[in-house]
């Protein structure tokens, strides 16, 4: 569409040149987009509709294929059946009991893990001795996929709550550590030098210059860790969960309730979205100086 418009303008420009004595340069059209505003708003509305229509279409296709009995219902129940499973879970109160239990696990592990990562990251970022003590071991541990350590955690902490929280804790340390360390080290040395000139003591430099400037990076680390906490939660709840979403999934697995399993997976996905939204909101509150840049 815009290509056609620009081609028309270029043609007109070249046509104009023929009347002049000397040939002009070939001008590339970088002007306002061709086409009237109403046409453009129609286009953007159509694009918006497409974003909604594709998922809706996929759902409809799923409903049709499963509903016609082309797929074994035990393998893939229809979306409506999954919705009914949701209703069932809410009706019996299972979901209302499961979400707080799962969230409690995830948040406990996340708060402990993120705090540890923050303290270690600040220590390694601000003091050379901290870097020498912690950086190498943490960089090594970081490369271990935490899911591989589940058998170890079961041996160490059993199959109760402790093992689950410990796994989430261990998994969430690293993103916060890495981003805090990088954020602190990434503060412009020129800012620190200026602060020195203006008589700030090392402690004041840390609090007034380094920490606020490193905060965006630290918050990115916490956001990553929140995502990882959810992942670790899912993995941890595979271990003999007696409450939470993992418990619903385990039960459904034993009872061959595919619809409930899918409902549980959707709950995990929704938790992920909610965590991300909350973190973005926290970032906006904590970093007004960045917001002013983006929304100016």
């Amino acid at each position, binding site marked *: 569409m815009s290509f056609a418009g620009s081609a028309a303008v270029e043609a007109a420009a070249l046509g104009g040149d023929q009347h002049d004595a000397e040939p002009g340069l070939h001008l590339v059209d970088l002007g306002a987009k061709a086409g009237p505003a109403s046409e453009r708003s129609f286009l953007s509305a159509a694009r918006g509709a497409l974003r909604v229509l594709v998922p809706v279409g996929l759902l409809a296709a799923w409903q049709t294929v499963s509903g016609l009995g082309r797929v074994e219902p035990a393998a893939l129940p229809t979306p409506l059946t999954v919705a009914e499973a949701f209703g069932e879970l809410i009706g019996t109160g299972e979901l209302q009991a499961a979400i707080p239990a799962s969230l409690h696990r995830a948040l406990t592990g996340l708060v402990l893990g993120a705090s540890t990562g923050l303290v270690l990251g600040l220590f390694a970022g601000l003091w050379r001795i901290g870097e020498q003590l912690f950086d190498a071991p943490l960089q090594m541990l970081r490369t271990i996929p935490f899911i591989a350590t589940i058998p170890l955690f079961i041996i160490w902490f059993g199959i109760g709550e402790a093992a689950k929280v410990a796994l989430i804790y261990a998994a969430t340390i690293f993103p916060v550590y890495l981003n805090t360390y990088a954020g602190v080290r990434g503060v*412009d040395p*020129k*800012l620190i*030098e*200026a*602060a*020195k*000139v*203006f*008589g*700030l003591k090392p402690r004041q430099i840390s609090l*007034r*210059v380094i920490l*606020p*400037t490193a*905060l965006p990076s630290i918050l990115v680390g916490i956001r990553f860790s929140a995502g990882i906490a959810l992942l670790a939660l899912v993995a941890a709840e595979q271990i003999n969960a007696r409450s939470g979403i993992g418990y619903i999934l385990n039960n459904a697995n034993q009872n061959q309730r595919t619809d409930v399993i899918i409902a549980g997976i959707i709950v995990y996905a929704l938790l992920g979205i909610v965590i991300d939204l909350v973190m973005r909101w926290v970032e906006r509150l904590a*970093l*007004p*100086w960045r917001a*002013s*840049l983006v929304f*100016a």
Partner: protein
Amino acid sequence: MSLHDLSGVRAAGAAPADLSPWSEEGRRFGPVTARLRGVRRIFAGRAVLDGVDLEVRKGEFVALLGPTGTGKTTLLRILAGLDRADEGDVGVAAARSVVFQEPRLVPALRVWRNVVIGHRRSAASRKLAAAALDEVGLVRHADAWPRTLSGGEAQRVALARALVQEPALLLLDEPFAALDALTRIRMHGLVQQLLRRHSPGVVLVTHDIDEALSLSNRVVVLNGGRVRLNAPVDMPRPRARTDRAFENLRQRLLAKLDVAADEPPI
């Protein structure tokens, strides 16, 4: 005025008598706020500063000129306490502040907090910041975030931050170099006006001969690690480039800076 000893090597015995070639000027200006004697600074076997003597008095504006890589900025950093001399004596006033080439404002702190960053946080600091911002015409931006400011505005905030310290020695490290020509002219005016009020000793590092000649009381040319010229600039203000004395001094400076002289003035 008591000077802080920032020497690389302890001074042997008492401070030498005032050897300033501008002692009659010294009577006009205040006490010494910076004194360098035989300062050497060696980087990778090369003496960037090779025995520099310099004295700056309160109220005096010294412009430091020199080709790139001749240690102007090193000299300024030594005066600021950000670098150490390898040899020689360095004494500077305790109350000193710097305006760098970049504003160097903390992006996460509001403008007024940046201005009083060196001060103890108290109920009065907001007022202090507002007064300093008023002097540079930015009091309306006290609550703004540094990133929303233009380059010239940010540099004015840096100037307010330097002056709020009430420095006896103000060090300017090419503070106007990154500004556009019009903003630079305005900044020159603003700085002159502010210095009349605060009158610290000023050392300005610059590449711009015209800037040096229109702002300073004295120009010092540094070349090959040594002071090659130390000349008073006593033309009346406002100074015009077309002034004969201005042009003569300009030619002398160009010669000391290894630049072939321009065409002589008509």
